[in-house]
Protein backbone atom coordinates (compact mmCIF):
# COMPACT_ATOMS: atom_id res chain seq x y z
CA UNK A 1 0.00 0.00 0.00
CA UNK A 2 1.65 3.22 -1.10
CA UNK A 3 -0.55 5.83 0.45
CA UNK A 4 -3.25 6.02 3.03
CA UNK A 5 -6.41 7.87 2.11
CA UNK A 6 -8.34 9.10 5.10
CA UNK A 7 -12.02 9.60 4.33
CA UNK A 8 -13.42 9.32 7.83
CA UNK A 9 -13.22 12.94 8.90
CA UNK A 10 -16.60 12.73 10.62
CA UNK A 11 -15.20 10.11 12.99
CA UNK A 12 -12.20 12.21 13.90
CA UNK A 13 -9.56 14.41 12.35
CA UNK A 14 -5.81 14.80 12.79
CA UNK A 15 -4.63 17.73 14.87
CA UNK A 16 -3.38 20.46 12.56
CA UNK A 17 0.25 21.36 12.96
CA UNK A 18 -0.54 24.98 13.78
CA UNK A 19 -2.86 23.71 16.50
CA UNK A 20 -0.33 21.32 18.03
CA UNK A 21 2.29 24.06 18.00
CA UNK A 22 0.04 26.27 20.11
CA UNK A 23 -0.61 23.42 22.52
CA UNK A 24 2.94 22.22 23.09
CA UNK A 25 4.21 24.83 25.56
CA UNK A 26 1.34 24.05 27.91
CA UNK A 27 2.51 20.50 28.55
CA UNK A 28 6.03 21.07 29.74
CA UNK A 29 6.74 24.76 30.30
CA UNK A 30 3.51 26.63 30.96
CA UNK A 31 2.09 23.84 33.01
CA UNK A 32 0.62 25.94 35.83
CA UNK A 33 -2.85 25.24 37.19
CA UNK A 34 -5.09 28.07 35.95
CA UNK A 35 -6.56 28.35 39.46
CA UNK A 36 -3.18 29.20 40.95
CA UNK A 37 -2.47 32.85 41.59
CA UNK A 38 1.25 32.86 40.85
CA UNK A 39 2.55 33.84 37.45
CA UNK A 40 2.77 30.29 36.08
CA UNK A 41 -0.90 29.84 36.93
CA UNK A 42 -1.92 33.15 35.41
CA UNK A 43 -0.28 32.22 32.12
CA UNK A 44 -2.55 29.18 31.92
CA UNK A 45 -5.56 31.23 32.95
CA UNK A 46 -4.87 33.75 30.19
CA UNK A 47 -4.54 30.95 27.64
CA UNK A 48 -7.83 29.36 28.67
CA UNK A 49 -9.62 32.69 28.50
CA UNK A 50 -8.21 33.38 25.06
CA UNK A 51 -9.58 30.07 23.83
CA UNK A 52 -12.92 30.92 25.37
CA UNK A 53 -12.98 34.10 23.33
CA UNK A 54 -12.04 32.24 20.16
CA UNK A 55 -15.01 29.92 20.62
CA UNK A 56 -17.39 32.71 21.61
CA UNK A 57 -16.50 34.68 18.52
CA UNK A 58 -17.31 31.85 16.15
CA UNK A 59 -20.67 31.15 17.78
CA UNK A 60 -21.54 34.84 18.28
CA UNK A 61 -21.81 34.16 21.99
CA UNK A 62 -20.51 35.94 25.05
CA UNK A 63 -17.32 34.44 26.46
CA UNK A 64 -19.04 33.84 29.77
CA UNK A 65 -21.45 31.53 27.98
CA UNK A 66 -18.69 29.12 26.88
CA UNK A 67 -17.92 26.16 29.16
CA UNK A 68 -15.16 23.71 28.41
CA UNK A 69 -15.88 19.99 28.76
CA UNK A 70 -14.17 16.72 27.86
CA UNK A 71 -15.95 16.37 24.51
CA UNK A 72 -19.22 16.14 22.66
CA UNK A 73 -20.62 13.30 24.73
CA UNK A 74 -20.08 15.09 28.01
CA UNK A 75 -21.60 18.26 26.58
CA UNK A 76 -24.68 16.37 25.40
CA UNK A 77 -25.10 14.56 28.71
CA UNK A 78 -24.61 17.74 30.68
CA UNK A 79 -27.06 19.76 28.60
CA UNK A 80 -29.82 17.20 28.72
CA UNK A 81 -29.48 15.87 32.27
CA UNK A 82 -28.59 19.29 33.60
CA UNK A 83 -31.68 20.97 32.14
CA UNK A 84 -33.99 18.06 32.95
CA UNK A 85 -32.96 17.72 36.59
CA UNK A 86 -32.85 21.44 37.29
CA UNK A 87 -36.22 22.14 35.71
CA UNK A 88 -38.16 19.06 36.69
CA UNK A 89 -40.51 21.16 38.81
CA UNK A 90 -41.64 22.85 35.59
CA UNK A 91 -42.25 19.68 33.62
CA UNK A 92 -40.91 16.27 32.70
CA UNK A 93 -41.24 16.17 28.92
CA UNK A 94 -38.39 16.25 26.42
CA UNK A 95 -38.56 16.28 22.63
CA UNK A 96 -35.80 14.88 20.44
CA UNK A 97 -35.52 12.93 17.18
CA UNK A 98 -34.95 9.33 16.19
CA UNK A 99 -31.67 10.14 14.47
CA UNK A 100 -29.70 11.73 17.30
CA UNK A 101 -26.26 10.55 18.28
CA UNK A 102 -26.23 7.92 21.03
CA UNK A 103 -24.88 10.52 23.46
CA UNK A 104 -28.29 12.18 23.19
CA UNK A 105 -30.44 9.09 22.73
CA UNK A 106 -28.99 7.07 25.60
CA UNK A 107 -29.18 10.10 27.88
CA UNK A 108 -32.85 10.51 27.00
CA UNK A 109 -33.44 6.81 27.61
CA UNK A 110 -31.76 7.13 30.99
CA UNK A 111 -34.08 9.98 31.89
CA UNK A 112 -37.08 7.93 30.75
CA UNK A 113 -36.13 5.37 33.37
CA UNK A 114 -36.08 8.16 35.92
CA UNK A 115 -39.48 9.73 35.54
CA UNK A 116 -39.14 11.75 32.35
CA UNK A 117 -41.15 11.34 29.17
CA UNK A 118 -39.43 11.65 25.82
CA UNK A 119 -40.90 12.13 22.34
CA UNK A 120 -38.69 10.86 19.53
CA UNK A 121 -39.65 12.71 16.34
CA UNK A 122 -39.68 10.86 13.04
CA UNK A 123 -37.69 12.09 10.08
CA UNK A 124 -38.51 11.88 6.40
CA UNK A 125 -36.56 9.86 3.83
CA UNK A 126 -33.94 12.60 3.61
CA UNK A 127 -33.52 12.70 7.36
CA UNK A 128 -35.36 15.96 7.97
CA UNK A 129 -37.78 16.52 10.81
CA UNK A 130 -41.18 18.06 10.14
CA UNK A 131 -41.72 21.36 11.96
CA UNK A 132 -45.42 20.68 12.37
CA UNK A 133 -44.61 17.38 14.08
CA UNK A 134 -42.44 19.34 16.44
CA UNK A 135 -45.15 21.88 17.20
CA UNK A 136 -47.67 19.12 17.77
CA UNK A 137 -45.36 17.29 20.13
CA UNK A 138 -45.02 20.27 22.47
CA UNK A 139 -47.00 20.01 25.70
CA UNK A 140 -47.29 22.10 28.80
CA UNK A 141 -44.76 19.80 30.45
CA UNK A 142 -42.14 20.19 27.72
CA UNK A 143 -38.96 21.65 29.21
CA UNK A 144 -36.39 20.80 26.56
CA UNK A 145 -36.10 20.30 22.82
CA UNK A 146 -32.84 18.67 21.77
CA UNK A 147 -32.29 18.27 18.04
CA UNK A 148 -28.96 17.80 16.33
CA UNK A 149 -27.63 20.43 13.96
CA UNK A 150 -26.35 18.01 11.32
CA UNK A 151 -26.41 14.24 11.36
CA UNK A 152 -23.14 12.38 11.78
CA UNK A 153 -24.08 9.52 9.46
CA UNK A 154 -26.09 10.95 6.61
CA UNK A 155 -25.07 14.59 6.95
CA UNK A 156 -28.56 16.08 6.76
CA UNK A 157 -28.82 19.57 8.23
CA UNK A 158 -31.94 20.43 10.24
CA UNK A 159 -33.79 23.77 10.10
CA UNK A 160 -32.17 24.89 13.34
CA UNK A 161 -33.25 28.53 13.28
CA UNK A 162 -36.89 27.58 12.83
CA UNK A 163 -36.70 24.97 15.56
CA UNK A 164 -35.12 27.54 17.84
CA UNK A 165 -37.86 30.01 17.10
CA UNK A 166 -40.57 27.50 17.96
CA UNK A 167 -38.82 26.68 21.22
CA UNK A 168 -38.22 30.32 22.09
CA UNK A 169 -41.85 31.26 21.48
CA UNK A 170 -43.01 28.54 23.80
CA UNK A 171 -40.40 29.29 26.47
CA UNK A 172 -38.77 25.87 26.08
CA UNK A 173 -35.01 25.38 26.26
CA UNK A 174 -33.44 24.38 22.94
CA UNK A 175 -30.26 22.33 22.87
CA UNK A 176 -28.53 21.34 19.66
CA UNK A 177 -25.80 18.73 19.27
CA UNK A 178 -23.64 20.61 16.80
CA UNK A 179 -20.66 18.26 17.04
CA UNK A 180 -20.71 17.61 13.29
CA UNK A 181 -21.70 21.14 12.32
CA UNK A 182 -19.08 23.18 14.13
CA UNK A 183 -16.10 23.71 11.90
CA UNK A 184 -18.19 23.14 8.81
CA UNK A 185 -21.24 25.39 9.01
CA UNK A 186 -21.81 28.97 10.09
CA UNK A 187 -23.47 29.13 13.46
CA UNK A 188 -24.97 32.11 15.24
CA UNK A 189 -26.50 31.13 18.55
CA UNK A 190 -28.31 34.44 18.89
CA UNK A 191 -29.80 34.50 15.42
CA UNK A 192 -30.69 30.82 15.62
CA UNK A 193 -32.29 31.03 19.08
CA UNK A 194 -30.04 28.35 20.53
CA UNK A 195 -29.93 28.02 24.33
CA UNK A 196 -27.41 25.20 24.55
CA UNK A 197 -24.97 23.87 21.97
CA UNK A 198 -22.50 20.95 22.11
CA UNK A 199 -19.27 20.81 20.14
CA UNK A 200 -16.16 18.63 20.18
CA UNK A 201 -12.60 19.66 19.32
CA UNK A 202 -11.48 16.56 17.43
CA UNK A 203 -14.04 17.00 14.67
CA UNK A 204 -12.35 20.13 13.31
CA UNK A 205 -8.63 19.34 13.49
CA UNK A 206 -8.39 20.04 17.20
CA UNK A 207 -7.51 17.56 19.94
CA UNK A 208 -9.63 14.69 21.24
CA UNK A 209 -11.01 14.80 24.77
CA UNK A 210 -12.02 18.45 24.83
CA UNK A 211 -15.33 20.04 23.94
CA UNK A 212 -17.62 22.90 24.76
CA UNK A 213 -21.10 23.40 26.01
CA UNK A 214 -22.48 26.81 25.13
CA UNK A 215 -25.05 27.82 27.75
CA UNK A 216 -27.04 30.97 27.14
CA UNK A 217 -26.84 33.43 30.02
CA UNK A 218 -29.65 32.89 32.50
CA UNK A 219 -30.25 29.24 31.63
CA UNK A 220 -31.11 27.15 34.67
CA UNK A 221 -28.96 24.03 34.62
CA UNK A 222 -27.46 21.58 37.11
CA UNK A 223 -23.80 20.71 36.93
CA UNK A 224 -22.85 17.27 35.67
CA UNK A 225 -19.41 17.40 37.28
CA UNK A 226 -19.41 19.20 40.62
CA UNK A 227 -16.34 20.15 42.65
CA UNK A 228 -13.88 23.00 42.31
CA UNK A 229 -14.90 26.45 41.13
CA UNK A 230 -13.57 26.03 37.58
CA UNK A 231 -15.67 27.17 34.61
CA UNK A 232 -17.52 29.73 36.73
CA UNK A 233 -18.53 27.07 39.21
CA UNK A 234 -20.40 25.06 36.61
CA UNK A 235 -17.94 22.35 35.54
CA UNK A 236 -15.32 21.19 37.99
CA UNK A 237 -11.90 19.75 37.26
CA UNK A 238 -8.46 21.12 36.58
CA UNK A 239 -8.68 22.56 33.10
CA UNK A 240 -7.17 20.57 30.23
CA UNK A 241 -5.12 23.62 29.30
CA UNK A 242 -3.32 22.27 26.21
CA UNK A 243 -6.56 20.75 24.97
CA UNK A 244 -8.50 23.95 25.49
CA UNK A 245 -5.79 26.01 23.80
CA UNK A 246 -5.86 23.57 20.88
CA UNK A 247 -9.63 23.70 20.57
CA UNK A 248 -9.53 27.50 20.54
CA UNK A 249 -6.92 27.63 17.81
CA UNK A 250 -8.64 24.91 15.79
CA UNK A 251 -12.02 26.59 15.81
CA UNK A 252 -10.44 29.89 14.81
CA UNK A 253 -8.66 28.23 11.88
CA UNK A 254 -11.76 26.32 10.86
CA UNK A 255 -13.68 29.53 10.33
CA UNK A 256 -10.96 31.27 8.33
CA UNK A 257 -12.03 31.24 4.67
CA UNK A 258 -14.87 28.90 5.49
CA UNK A 259 -16.79 29.68 2.32
CA UNK A 260 -13.81 28.98 0.12
CA UNK A 261 -13.04 25.72 1.86
CA UNK A 262 -16.61 24.59 1.69
CA UNK A 263 -16.86 25.38 -1.98
CA UNK A 264 -13.93 23.05 -2.58
CA UNK A 265 -15.30 20.40 -0.24
CA UNK A 266 -18.75 20.43 -1.82
CA UNK A 267 -17.21 20.06 -5.25
CA UNK A 268 -15.25 17.02 -4.08
CA UNK A 269 -18.29 15.58 -2.33
CA UNK A 270 -20.50 15.92 -5.37
CA UNK A 271 -17.83 14.45 -7.60
CA UNK A 272 -17.65 11.42 -5.32
CA UNK A 273 -21.42 11.07 -5.26
CA UNK A 274 -21.88 11.26 -8.98
CA UNK A 275 -18.98 8.97 -9.79
CA UNK A 276 -20.35 6.31 -7.47
CA UNK A 277 -23.80 6.65 -8.95
CA UNK A 278 -22.41 6.46 -12.47
CA UNK A 279 -20.16 3.47 -11.91
CA UNK A 280 -21.95 1.20 -9.48
CA UNK A 281 -25.42 -0.25 -9.81
CA UNK A 282 -27.91 -0.76 -7.01
CA UNK A 283 -26.71 2.06 -4.83
CA UNK A 284 -28.70 4.57 -2.84
CA UNK A 285 -27.48 7.95 -1.57
CA UNK A 286 -28.52 8.43 2.03
CA UNK A 287 -29.37 11.85 3.41
CA UNK A 288 -30.51 15.00 1.68
CA UNK A 289 -28.81 15.48 -1.70
CA UNK A 290 -27.90 19.12 -1.20
CA UNK A 291 -28.85 20.12 2.33
CA UNK A 292 -26.04 18.06 3.81
CA UNK A 293 -22.65 18.54 5.44
CA UNK A 294 -20.10 19.69 2.87
CA UNK A 295 -17.91 16.63 3.35
CA UNK A 296 -20.51 13.91 3.90
CA UNK A 297 -21.15 11.07 1.45
CA UNK A 298 -23.22 8.11 2.55
CA UNK A 299 -24.33 5.27 0.31
CA UNK A 300 -26.01 1.94 0.66
CA UNK A 301 -24.63 -0.76 -1.62
CA UNK A 302 -27.27 -3.42 -1.96
CA UNK A 303 -26.49 -7.13 -1.44
CA UNK A 304 -23.33 -6.53 0.54
CA UNK A 305 -22.59 -5.85 4.13
CA UNK A 306 -20.87 -2.71 5.38
CA UNK A 307 -18.09 -4.13 7.46
CA UNK A 308 -16.71 -6.30 4.69
CA UNK A 309 -16.73 -3.18 2.53
CA UNK A 310 -14.74 -1.31 5.15
CA UNK A 311 -12.22 -4.08 5.61
CA UNK A 312 -11.72 -4.33 1.88
CA UNK A 313 -11.22 -0.58 1.60
CA UNK A 314 -8.72 -0.68 4.45
CA UNK A 315 -6.75 -3.33 2.53
CA UNK A 316 -6.32 -0.88 -0.32
CA UNK A 317 -5.44 1.99 2.02
CA UNK A 318 -8.76 3.75 2.40
CA UNK A 319 -10.24 4.62 5.79
CA UNK A 320 -14.01 4.96 5.86
CA UNK A 321 -16.87 4.00 8.10
CA UNK A 322 -20.19 2.23 8.18
CA UNK A 323 -22.82 3.46 10.55
CA UNK A 324 -21.18 5.70 13.08
CA UNK A 325 -17.71 5.01 14.34
CA UNK A 326 -18.93 4.69 17.89
CA UNK A 327 -21.09 1.73 17.12
CA UNK A 328 -18.97 -0.10 14.64
CA UNK A 329 -18.60 -2.94 17.14
CA UNK A 330 -22.35 -3.36 17.12
CA UNK A 331 -24.35 -5.88 15.17
CA UNK A 332 -27.47 -3.77 14.80
CA UNK A 333 -27.82 -1.68 11.70
CA UNK A 334 -27.71 2.06 12.11
CA UNK A 335 -30.76 3.54 13.84
CA UNK A 336 -30.42 6.53 11.53
CA UNK A 337 -30.75 4.46 8.36
CA UNK A 338 -33.73 2.63 9.79
CA UNK A 339 -35.30 5.98 10.70
CA UNK A 340 -35.07 7.22 7.11
CA UNK A 341 -37.00 4.13 6.11
CA UNK A 342 -34.39 1.68 4.88
CA UNK A 343 -35.12 -2.01 5.40
CA UNK A 344 -32.66 -3.81 7.66
CA UNK A 345 -30.92 -5.73 4.91
CA UNK A 346 -30.11 -2.58 2.98
CA UNK A 347 -29.19 -0.60 6.07
CA UNK A 348 -26.51 -3.22 6.73
CA UNK A 349 -24.69 -2.26 3.56
CA UNK A 350 -23.94 1.37 4.22
CA UNK A 351 -20.70 3.23 3.71
CA UNK A 352 -19.84 6.71 4.92
CA UNK A 353 -17.02 8.57 3.23
CA UNK A 354 -16.45 11.87 5.01
CA UNK A 355 -14.14 14.30 3.28
CA UNK A 356 -11.89 16.82 4.95
CA UNK A 357 -9.50 19.60 4.16
CA UNK A 358 -6.70 17.24 3.17
CA UNK A 359 -8.59 15.19 0.59
CA UNK A 360 -7.97 15.64 -3.13
CA UNK A 361 -9.67 14.93 -6.42
CA UNK A 362 -7.15 12.18 -7.13
CA UNK A 363 -8.09 10.48 -3.90
CA UNK A 364 -11.76 10.64 -4.78
CA UNK A 365 -11.09 9.04 -8.13
CA UNK A 366 -8.90 6.34 -6.62
CA UNK A 367 -11.54 5.49 -4.05
CA UNK A 368 -14.22 5.16 -6.70
CA UNK A 369 -12.00 2.87 -8.78
CA UNK A 370 -11.36 0.66 -5.80
CA UNK A 371 -14.98 0.70 -4.74
CA UNK A 372 -16.05 -0.57 -8.13
CA UNK A 373 -13.73 -3.57 -7.78
CA UNK A 374 -14.59 -4.28 -4.16
CA UNK A 375 -18.33 -4.04 -4.58
CA UNK A 376 -18.12 -6.32 -7.58
CA UNK A 377 -16.04 -8.87 -5.69
CA UNK A 378 -18.29 -8.89 -2.63
CA UNK A 379 -21.43 -9.07 -4.68
CA UNK A 380 -20.07 -12.08 -6.54
CA UNK A 381 -19.69 -13.71 -3.15
CA UNK A 382 -23.17 -12.72 -2.01
CA UNK A 383 -26.06 -15.20 -2.07
CA UNK A 384 -28.41 -12.24 -2.41
CA UNK A 385 -26.86 -11.00 -5.60
CA UNK A 386 -26.90 -14.06 -7.82
CA UNK A 387 -30.67 -13.91 -8.05
CA UNK A 388 -30.38 -10.34 -9.29
CA UNK A 389 -27.55 -11.18 -11.64
CA UNK A 390 -29.67 -13.95 -13.06
CA UNK A 391 -32.37 -11.38 -13.59
CA UNK A 392 -34.72 -12.87 -11.01
Amino acid at each position, binding site marked *: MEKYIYMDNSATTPVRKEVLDEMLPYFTEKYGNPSSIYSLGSASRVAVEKAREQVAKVLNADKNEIFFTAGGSESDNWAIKGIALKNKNKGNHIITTKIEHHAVLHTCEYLEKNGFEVTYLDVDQDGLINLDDLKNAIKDETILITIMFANNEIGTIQPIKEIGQIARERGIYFHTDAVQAVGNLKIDVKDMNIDLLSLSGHKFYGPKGVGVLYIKKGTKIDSLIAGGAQERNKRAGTENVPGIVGLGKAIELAYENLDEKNEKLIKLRDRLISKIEENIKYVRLNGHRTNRLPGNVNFCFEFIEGESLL*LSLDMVGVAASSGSACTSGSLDPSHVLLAIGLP*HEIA*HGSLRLSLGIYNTEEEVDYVVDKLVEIVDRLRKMS*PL*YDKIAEGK
Partner: protein
Amino acid sequence: MYSEKVMDHFTNPRNVGEIEDASGIGEVGNAKCGDIMRMYLKIEDGKIEDVKFKTFGCGSAIASSSMATELIKGKTIEEAMALTNKAVAEALDGLPPVKMHCSVLAEQAIKAALLDYSKKHNVVIPGLDEFNFEEEDHHSVTED
Protein backbone atom coordinates in the same frame (compact mmCIF):
# COMPACT_ATOMS: atom_id res chain seq x y z
CA MET B 1 -9.49 -6.46 15.81
CA TYR B 2 -9.18 -9.55 13.60
CA SER B 3 -6.40 -12.12 13.57
CA GLU B 4 -4.19 -12.47 10.53
CA LYS B 5 -5.89 -15.76 9.74
CA VAL B 6 -9.28 -14.06 9.64
CA MET B 7 -7.94 -11.35 7.38
CA ASP B 8 -6.33 -13.93 5.13
CA HIS B 9 -9.55 -15.93 4.76
CA PHE B 10 -11.51 -12.73 4.28
CA THR B 11 -9.22 -11.37 1.59
CA ASN B 12 -8.61 -14.68 -0.16
CA PRO B 13 -11.62 -16.76 0.70
CA ARG B 14 -11.29 -20.44 -0.23
CA ASN B 15 -14.08 -22.27 -2.02
CA VAL B 16 -16.24 -19.32 -2.98
CA GLY B 17 -18.90 -20.10 -5.53
CA GLU B 18 -21.60 -22.62 -6.34
CA ILE B 19 -21.75 -26.30 -7.22
CA GLU B 20 -24.09 -26.88 -10.15
CA ASP B 21 -25.17 -30.41 -9.25
CA ALA B 22 -24.75 -30.15 -5.49
CA SER B 23 -25.73 -33.13 -3.34
CA GLY B 24 -27.01 -30.73 -0.68
CA ILE B 25 -27.46 -27.01 -0.22
CA GLY B 26 -27.96 -25.23 3.08
CA GLU B 27 -28.75 -21.58 3.79
CA VAL B 28 -28.84 -20.00 7.24
CA GLY B 29 -29.05 -16.49 8.70
CA ASN B 30 -31.12 -13.70 7.25
CA ALA B 31 -30.47 -10.41 5.60
CA LYS B 32 -32.22 -8.52 8.35
CA CYS B 33 -29.54 -9.58 10.78
CA GLY B 34 -26.83 -8.75 8.31
CA ASP B 35 -25.57 -12.20 7.43
CA ILE B 36 -26.62 -15.07 5.18
CA MET B 37 -24.52 -18.13 4.43
CA ARG B 38 -25.25 -20.64 1.70
CA MET B 39 -23.24 -23.83 1.60
CA TYR B 40 -23.04 -26.28 -1.36
CA LEU B 41 -21.84 -29.87 -0.78
CA LYS B 42 -20.83 -32.52 -3.28
CA ILE B 43 -20.93 -35.84 -1.46
CA GLU B 44 -19.73 -39.16 -2.83
CA ASP B 45 -19.39 -42.42 -0.90
CA GLY B 46 -20.05 -40.64 2.37
CA LYS B 47 -17.21 -38.22 1.70
CA ILE B 48 -17.36 -34.51 1.04
CA GLU B 49 -15.70 -34.34 -2.35
CA ASP B 50 -16.31 -30.64 -2.85
CA VAL B 51 -17.74 -27.70 -1.00
CA LYS B 52 -18.47 -24.11 -2.00
CA PHE B 53 -20.11 -21.16 -0.29
CA LYS B 54 -21.69 -17.79 -0.87
CA THR B 55 -21.93 -15.36 2.02
CA PHE B 56 -23.49 -11.98 2.63
CA GLY B 57 -22.00 -10.64 5.83
CA CYS B 58 -19.16 -9.06 7.69
CA GLY B 59 -15.50 -9.96 7.46
CA SER B 60 -15.70 -12.68 10.04
CA ALA B 61 -18.78 -14.21 8.40
CA ILE B 62 -16.87 -14.55 5.15
CA ALA B 63 -13.75 -15.83 6.88
CA SER B 64 -15.77 -18.30 8.93
CA SER B 65 -17.42 -19.65 5.79
CA SER B 66 -14.09 -20.02 4.08
CA MET B 67 -12.45 -21.73 7.03
CA ALA B 68 -15.40 -24.05 7.58
CA THR B 69 -15.30 -25.24 3.98
CA GLU B 70 -11.59 -25.91 4.28
CA LEU B 71 -12.11 -27.90 7.44
CA ILE B 72 -14.64 -30.29 5.95
CA LYS B 73 -13.35 -30.65 2.42
CA GLY B 74 -12.39 -34.29 1.79
CA LYS B 75 -13.72 -35.34 5.18
CA THR B 76 -16.44 -37.90 5.90
CA ILE B 77 -19.98 -36.91 6.77
CA GLU B 78 -19.32 -37.93 10.36
CA GLU B 79 -16.27 -35.74 10.52
CA ALA B 80 -18.21 -32.82 9.05
CA MET B 81 -20.97 -33.40 11.58
CA ALA B 82 -18.39 -33.20 14.35
CA LEU B 83 -17.23 -29.73 13.34
CA THR B 84 -18.18 -27.22 16.03
CA ASN B 85 -18.31 -23.46 15.78
CA LYS B 86 -15.56 -23.35 18.38
CA ALA B 87 -13.31 -25.35 16.11
CA VAL B 88 -13.96 -22.89 13.28
CA ALA B 89 -13.17 -19.93 15.51
CA GLU B 90 -10.05 -21.58 16.85
CA ALA B 91 -8.82 -22.44 13.37
CA LEU B 92 -9.11 -18.71 12.65
CA ASP B 93 -6.98 -17.93 15.73
CA GLY B 94 -10.07 -16.62 17.46
CA LEU B 95 -12.87 -14.19 16.74
CA PRO B 96 -13.89 -11.10 18.74
CA PRO B 97 -16.64 -11.96 21.25
CA VAL B 98 -19.30 -10.01 19.32
CA LYS B 99 -18.42 -11.97 16.21
CA MET B 100 -18.61 -15.50 17.59
CA HIS B 101 -22.07 -15.91 16.09
CA CYS B 102 -20.43 -15.95 12.64
CA SER B 103 -18.73 -19.23 13.45
CA VAL B 104 -22.07 -20.52 14.72
CA LEU B 105 -23.60 -19.67 11.36
CA ALA B 106 -20.86 -21.55 9.56
CA GLU B 107 -21.47 -24.67 11.62
CA GLN B 108 -25.19 -24.35 11.01
CA ALA B 109 -24.78 -23.83 7.26
CA ILE B 110 -22.89 -27.12 6.97
CA LYS B 111 -25.50 -28.96 8.97
CA ALA B 112 -28.29 -27.39 6.94
CA ALA B 113 -26.59 -28.59 3.76
CA LEU B 114 -26.16 -32.07 5.23
CA LEU B 115 -29.84 -32.07 6.21
CA ASP B 116 -30.75 -31.17 2.65
CA TYR B 117 -28.54 -34.00 1.41
CA SER B 118 -30.02 -36.50 3.86
CA LYS B 119 -33.55 -35.60 2.77
CA LYS B 120 -32.83 -35.61 -0.94
CA HIS B 121 -30.91 -38.87 -0.79
CA ASN B 122 -32.79 -40.55 2.00
CA VAL B 123 -29.72 -40.98 4.11
CA VAL B 124 -29.94 -40.97 7.88
CA ILE B 125 -27.24 -38.84 9.46
CA PRO B 126 -26.96 -39.46 13.21
CA GLY B 127 -27.14 -36.34 15.31
CA LEU B 128 -28.81 -34.16 12.73
CA ASP B 129 -32.26 -34.44 14.24
CA GLU B 130 -31.18 -33.17 17.59
CA PHE B 131 -29.53 -30.13 16.08
CA ASN B 132 -31.23 -26.88 16.86
CA PHE B 133 -31.17 -24.42 14.01
CA GLU B 134 -32.62 -21.62 16.09
CA GLU B 135 -29.64 -19.52 16.86
CA GLU B 136 -29.76 -17.70 20.17
CA ASP B 137 -30.55 -14.04 19.56
CA HIS B 138 -27.13 -12.61 18.99
CA HIS B 139 -28.47 -9.07 19.03
CA SER B 140 -28.64 -9.15 22.79
CA VAL B 141 -24.93 -9.87 23.09
CA THR B 142 -23.42 -7.24 25.32
CA GLU B 143 -19.88 -6.90 26.40
CA ASP B 144 -20.27 -6.83 30.11
